[in-house]
């Protein structure tokens, strides 16, 4: 029982549980709802939010974990999404550390920027590992739509990540 409690107190386990729910939303709701023909990327938003909530290092690890989970349900090579999402989490946290007094709109802007970067990095990474036909002009439109959506939903996601990635003491 103590072990289960210890596990529940682990912040990365909590992030895993949150990511599992978000992933199920990604594969059901958001793969069906496609505004402007674009599949919205809430898993990417989760990775960026991890960086915004707890800094670049935690963002990188959290992003890697979220990306790896996403890779599990995709047919793309395992590890590509993890690397990209880790970069997004790291980037969001790193740039956020330079903001003097973070407020709601700065988080939205950073979330949008990190998401757009991730949507460009993903086809680049896929091309590097040998997937053809993904690096097209459409990437710009996709990145724009995903960035706008992720900016709108960044605040609740950041709050969820702040809770999930909090230290055990804070939880108690």
């Amino acid at each position: 029982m103590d072990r289960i409690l210890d596990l529940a107190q682990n912040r990365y386990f909590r992030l895993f549980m949150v990511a599992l729910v978000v992933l199920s939303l990604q594969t059901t709701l958001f793969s069906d709802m496609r505004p402007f023909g674009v599949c919205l990327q809430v898993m990417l938003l989760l990775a960026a939010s991890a960086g915004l909530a707890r800094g670049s290092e935690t963002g990188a690890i959290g992003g890697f974990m979220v990306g790896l989970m996403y890779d599990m349900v995709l047919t793309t090579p395992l590890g590509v999404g993890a690397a990209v999402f880790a970069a997004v989490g790291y980037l969001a946290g790193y740039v956020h550390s330079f903001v003097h007094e973070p407020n709601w709109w700065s988080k939205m802007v950073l979330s949008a920027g990190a998401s757009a970067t991730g949507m460009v990095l993903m086809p680049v990474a896929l091309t590097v590992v040998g997937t053809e036909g993904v690096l097209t002009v459409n990437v710009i439109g996709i990145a724009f739509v995903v960035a706008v959506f992720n900016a709108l939903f960044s605040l609740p996601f950041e709050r969820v990540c702040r809770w999930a990635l909090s230290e055990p003491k804070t939880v108690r």
Partner: protein
Amino acid sequence: MAGSTFTRRRIILLLALTTVMLVTMDLRGSGAVNGIRSLFGTVFRPVESVTRVVVRPVENAWNGITNYSDVLEENQRLKDLVAYGEGAKIGAIASVREAQELLALNGLPTLAGINSCSAQVVGESPSNYAQTVEINRGGECGIKVGMPVLNAAGLIGKVTDVYNGRAVVMLITDPSYSLAVKVVNTPPTTTTVPGAPGVTVDTTTTTTSTTTTTIPRTTTTGIPGFVPGATLAPTVTTNPSQVTSPNATVQLPTGTGDINKPGEANQSEITVPPGADLPLRETGALEGRGISKAPVVRFIENQPRFGEVNLGSPVVSAGGASSLAPPDIVIGTVSRVIKRSGSLGPLLEVKISANLDALNFVRVMLYQPSTEKVNAP
């Protein structure tokens, strides 16, 4: 600060190495990676199923708002299509049966001899860069990696991942998809309805006074140029020396003279199949180009015999020992011909018969290509 930088570098290095290791293992087809994916699927699928049930009303509301006018238009279009298809179906069924009988008579394999497993599409790819769908049948049905997947309209893709109770299908628009195909190019024909007013009859004058008339061709299929029964050579009485048009089938008027008396016979008993009128076939490789672009057929040779590729020419799977699909599965029609210089053959854009945006019930043909079979160690 120095310690923090060291930790950060160590984390980045660790993540980078893990990524390289995972990508390498996956690209080399490691069984461990498939095992991890399968294990994760076991944990994730129940959560996904619950979420699917919970969010269905939201999905329905969204689809109602965004697709209402499209659905109305599609409904109208489908009603027209049903009316059109009713007539075509009868002719098509007869042709297919005839073809299957002929193939069976000659001991050739047919699609009817391959078992299949019906499934329903339960999810699309959540990615913007992969064209895959998920179906609700898997290994328990005999589905294996590489098996072709069809719906009522034609080929839609191949199985890439198989789990218990589900499988992932890569659509033919995916850039990673490639398949050997045949393009059935036919000479231009006139589409007519027998008995209808204004039936077109092509007339070719000959050097003699004989009037040469081509047999009106009746097209009952929705695919132009793909004429049911067209490969069956009609038995016509001809005088080859009088034919001036290579594509013309000649029929002399029924003679009245005695064929046993030299000089009086004007009716020959020699029957010549109109070989020049048979559809010409050329093989190529169909390649997907992503969801926004039509797939193309490459390696169509620039042969004078094959001639200009007609728009609307049917594209069917070529079959063969190393092909991903058995022969003669309908894929689509040629929608655009891109001519290329030199000896390069034309590049053909293909309009896929199946509507990949609205997949529901599909059929997995339990035909595993030799190239996809896993060799026993």
